[in-house]
């Protein structure tokens, strides 16, 4: 599955809820304000394990818009909108944690 998180983990509980239910074979894509969770900050440990496994993606346009390109946490994979489409195609059912 592809889990899509679009909110900052500082503002909302959606990243936490996603992490509570994501299984071992699914990947996560951070979009919109969700990319804030991909920056080096006090919330970064939440996704560190998943990132080490290469299972955390972030939408590049949103990362650049928020001025955090140079502050990304380790092992985050950047994708564009075409990469977003590929993730949807490759990973089966998409779950949006809106």
């Amino acid at each position, binding site marked *: 599955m592809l889990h899509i998180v679009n909110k900052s983990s500082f503002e909302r509980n959606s990243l936490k809820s996603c992490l509570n*239910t*994501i299984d071992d074979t699914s990947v996560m894509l951070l979009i919109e304000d969700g990319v804030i969770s991909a920056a080096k900050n006090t919330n970064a440990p939440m996704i560190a394990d998943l990132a080490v496994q290469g299972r955390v993606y972030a939408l590049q346009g949103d990362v650049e818009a928020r001025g955090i390109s140079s502050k990304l946490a380790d092992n985050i994979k950047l994708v564009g909108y075409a990469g977003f489409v590929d993730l949807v195609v490759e990973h089966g*059912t*998409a*779950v949006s944690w*809106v």
Partner: protein
Amino acid sequence: MATKKFMYLNRRSSFGTIYAIESLEVVLIAAAFEQDVSLAFIDDGVYQIVEGQNADGIGMKNFSKTFHALGDYDINKLYVSAESLEERGLSADDLMPLVYEDEDDDWAEKPSIKVVFNVELSKIMSEQDVCLSF
């Protein structure tokens, strides 16, 4: 049409936003399509099916009773996060007694609500073909 597994993911309470009631509107329409339908109540979504909601004081429509109709439409898989309930000081006893009649068991009345831990919820989610989020 082929049968697919549809999950309706509900994470917000009943009245602060319209997502709860408009989610229920989709579920009622979905019943006509004879798909495999599951509802998940996670986070504040568990408040949607709490017993004793009364919206008179806020001038809004109390739609919570509509959940009782779901059983008649063969929608009887309502998964509620045990962890979400517990965080909120709630237990299964605080939820509406939603039931359905099981046609494979001489129409015995059975509960529609299943309180499940996140690890089970995770497995149920991974089996879905479509997830609609509200």
